[in-house]
């Protein structure tokens, strides 16, 4: 086994050396990593049950009943989300796949369920174990959340999904699930382990359906599968090409690569890399200027967001058309910029210029748009999907090391 791997490595090294010598630059496509670590990413209009998605990046995730090699299914159109951590699957989609996952229980034998806030909505449902495979990588007995759109588990507590804000179904995310592969291993972390008053995130639920907030050990929390891989577990790279038509493409194909500086296909560039260290919350800083006043805001590079999301009251908001709530600059395209700054040791500073178009001029029914900005809140700045087109984005997991960089960080 080991000899074979070495031979493969040798062969690929020789191959790339030969290609390099002939002056070709497409070495990456001709190398074969020891463990297949690359998954196709598609930006398209979404799963059959909820078409019309824009700037949604999807992957296909293979799941098996923990410990089984036969009780398996491939779930397509799972949203690639660098702004969360852990895998969440829509319950009805999982049921239709025929794969049953065993639920996680606490020390008292109560079923563990979870309430997670995404923007203006919440997901609710049980935590269950799955063997998860992505390309050639696998995470065994991974705690995942089943988003209970069919209402087969205990009903959510009053505070979870109040006001009709539950987003468990396929239409909630325009996706069959959410694959959170951001900068942390667990979704809640230490705050959910020892709190005197447990946060309203993890719950223990009786058979009668009564749920009470409780703490959850790190190993019990919904977990980023990448952190559980045997190798290539220090982060990811999202690589998407630029758009062909700046006003909208019907689809875009790229790659989600596991590991950073662990294989031939995920090396760090020797020069030109901007590395932005993140704080304990997973944020770096973006400074955005309005009318000459610069404000530093917590920032993310977030594939789960469809636009550049921030608040600038000087830019007109679309009041009609298919993009209500996004920005519709009067003189479009409008040039804009923000300055990114890393936190801690990886304290690079980098100015990013971008453009904001009038989305009503976009190609009808296209799925990928690069100059889309949204009316976000003024408490954060988010580099959403438009930032990914034409870039390789490196995301380093907390406390994991890649070459000279220790996570959490974002780099491009």
């Amino acid at each position, binding site marked *: 086994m080991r000899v074979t791997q070495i031979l493969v490595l040798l062969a690929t090294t020789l191959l790339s050396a030969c290609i390099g010598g002939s002056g070709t630059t497409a070495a990456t496509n001709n190398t074969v990593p020891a463990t297949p670590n690359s998954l196709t990413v598609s930006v398209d209009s979404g799963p059959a049950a909820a078409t019309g998605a824009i700037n*949604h990046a999807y992957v296909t995730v293979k799941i098996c009943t923990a410990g089984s090699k036969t009780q398996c299914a491939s779930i397509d159109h799972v949203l690639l989300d660098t702004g*969360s951590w852990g895998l969440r699957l829509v319950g009805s989609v999982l049921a239709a796949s025929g794969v049953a996952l065993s639920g996680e229980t606490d020390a008292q034998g109560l079923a563990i369920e979870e309430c997670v806030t*995404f923007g203006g909505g919440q997901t609710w449902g049980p935590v269950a174990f799955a063997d998860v495979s992505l390309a050639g990588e696998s995470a065994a007995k991974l705690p995942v959340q089943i988003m209970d759109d069919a209402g087969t588990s205990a009903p959510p507590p009053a505070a979870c999904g109040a006001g*009709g804000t539950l987003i468990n179904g396929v239409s909630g995310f325009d996706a069959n699930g959410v694959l959170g592969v951001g900068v942390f291993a667990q979704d809640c972390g230490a705050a959910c382990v020892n709190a005197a008053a447990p946060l309203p995130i993890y719950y223990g639920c009786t058979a009668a359906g009564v749920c009470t907030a409780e703490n959850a050990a790190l190993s019990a929390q919904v977990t980023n599968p990448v952190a559980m891989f045997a190798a290539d577990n220090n982060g990811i790279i999202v690589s998407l090409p630029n758009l062909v038509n700046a006003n909208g493409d019907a689809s875009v194909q790229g790659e989600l690569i596991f590991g950073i500086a662990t294989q031939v296909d995920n090396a760090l560039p020797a020069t030109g890399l901007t590395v932005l260290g993140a704080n304990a919350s997973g944020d770096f800083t973006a400074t955005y200027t309005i009318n000459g006043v610069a404000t530093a805001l*917590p920032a993310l590079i977030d594939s789960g*967001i469809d636009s550049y999301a921030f608040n600038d009251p000087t830019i007109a908001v679309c009041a009609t058309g298919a993009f209500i*709530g996004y920005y519709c600059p009067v003189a479009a395209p409008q040039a804009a910029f923000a300055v990114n700054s890393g936190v801690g040791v990886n304290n690079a500073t980098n100015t990013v210029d971008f453009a904001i178009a009038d989305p009503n001029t976009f190609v009808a029914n296209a799925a990928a748009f690069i100059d889309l900005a949204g009316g976000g809140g003024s408490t954060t700045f*988010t580099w959403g999907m438009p930032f990914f087109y034409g870039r390789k984005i490196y995301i380093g997991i907390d406390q994991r090391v890649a070459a000279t960089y220790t996570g959490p960080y974002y780099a491009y």
Partner: protein
Amino acid sequence: MTICKAKYALLLAAVCMSALWSGSARAALGSDAASVSVDGASMHGDVQSEIRERYQVLKISTAAGISVREYLNKDGIVFAVSWNGPVPPDLQRLLGEHFTTYAAALAAVDHPGVRRSLRVESSGLILELGGHLRAYAGRAYLAALIPGGIPAAEFL
């Protein structure tokens, strides 16, 4: 009324006074200072007061690291609330009667769940949500009640 208990000694006498004529305030935004104290109790948080030039800030902080700030104008009415922490606060409680306005506005937003950064504006209520797992932040305010001349950036 529990608001004058020792736990909330940091509240100004004015707060206790206002409770006397507040009736049964249950939620904060658009209500009076007594409602802030009710919020503090429900969150098992400590409440501290800070007087600024044209308004007062009551700060609730919990052991779990949730911080809520409620802004009162000279009439003692909460015109803005803001928060940050590992989970968002109970918005039903914090927005009170304005929660239905928020929920209706949210329902009109395309895919609010995916919009981790979100701004809704309806019937004079402006609400901004931001953040992600481990770090949520946001604020809500009633534009008509903001004391004149205060930029919105002041009550982040």
